[in-house]
């Protein structure tokens, strides 16, 4: 199998993860489940970044840095997501985004 074909297969998997994650992030009602969708999208980014490094530019560290940044974004998203969930929940016992829509300015 040529390298390009393998790259395309791996990237397709990454696209699959991004697609599933988008579906989840958009369709789920609870904040925690929305976060899981976002995590799945970022999971796809991780995979795409790793594949890009290996197949396209292994001599440069940039793709690796992209993966590191994606990991950090995941951590930040998790931490802030949970903090917001706790704050919401403490304030009004809700954990669903529809119910938080009155925050709309």
């Amino acid at each position, binding site marked *: 199998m040529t390298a390009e074909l393998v790259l395309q297969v791996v990237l*397709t998997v990454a696209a699959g993860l991004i*697609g*599933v994650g988008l579906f989840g992030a958009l369709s789920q009602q609870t904040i925690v489940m929305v976060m899981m969708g976002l995590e799945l999208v970022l999971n796809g980014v991780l995979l795409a970044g790793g594949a890009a490094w290996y197949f396209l530019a*292994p001599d440069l560290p940039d793709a690796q840095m992209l993966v590191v940044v994606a*990991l*950090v974004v995941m951590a930040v998203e998790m931490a802030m997501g949970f*903090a917001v969930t706790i704050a919401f929940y403490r304030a009004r016992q809700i954990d669903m985004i529809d119910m938080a829509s009155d925050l709309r300015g």
Partner: protein
Amino acid sequence: MLTDLGGWVIATVVALGILSVAAGIAVFVVDSMARATFALLASFLAVAGVLLALDLVYLAVVTALMMTIEMAIMAVFMIMFMMNPAGLMPMTMVHNAKGSAVIGAGAFAGLTVGIWTVDWPTRDVSRPADSTRQLGEAIMGSHMLVMLVIGIGLFATIIAGTVLATARGRYDRFGADLAAEHPDDPVPGGLPR
């Protein structure tokens, strides 16, 4: 040729890829929140496995490490906040499922078309002996600015997260004039104070 991946490595990569997507779908299919969380973890571990096969040992292991801890904490929150953590009373909690499915499938289709039509550059470049060292030197050298920004971002996250999540500030603990000798905590910790 760019790759020195053997046949069984490619097979493993493909199998792990399919597993990661299947586990990702399972996240939104299973009823039990615990199972959803650990399906997501399975998806992450499969991706970590692919990264391992792609010679990115450090990133693969760090992904496994971080995501496991994240998912363990996520499981706690799931059970604390969700209505149906064990999935014993199946219920659906979705809105606009059809539109979301269209957007998700559309994104996948668009990306896939791009992936399979783009003529990927096949440069013949040297592979570093040690990808971990490459990353480490980049972080401490050419890409230090990225790390600095990341560090500040994480620090801000720690503070913001704590502020949002905690209900008790120092006035609750030490009194309105901060004069209390011992903090008024529901459970005293292990330090003498």
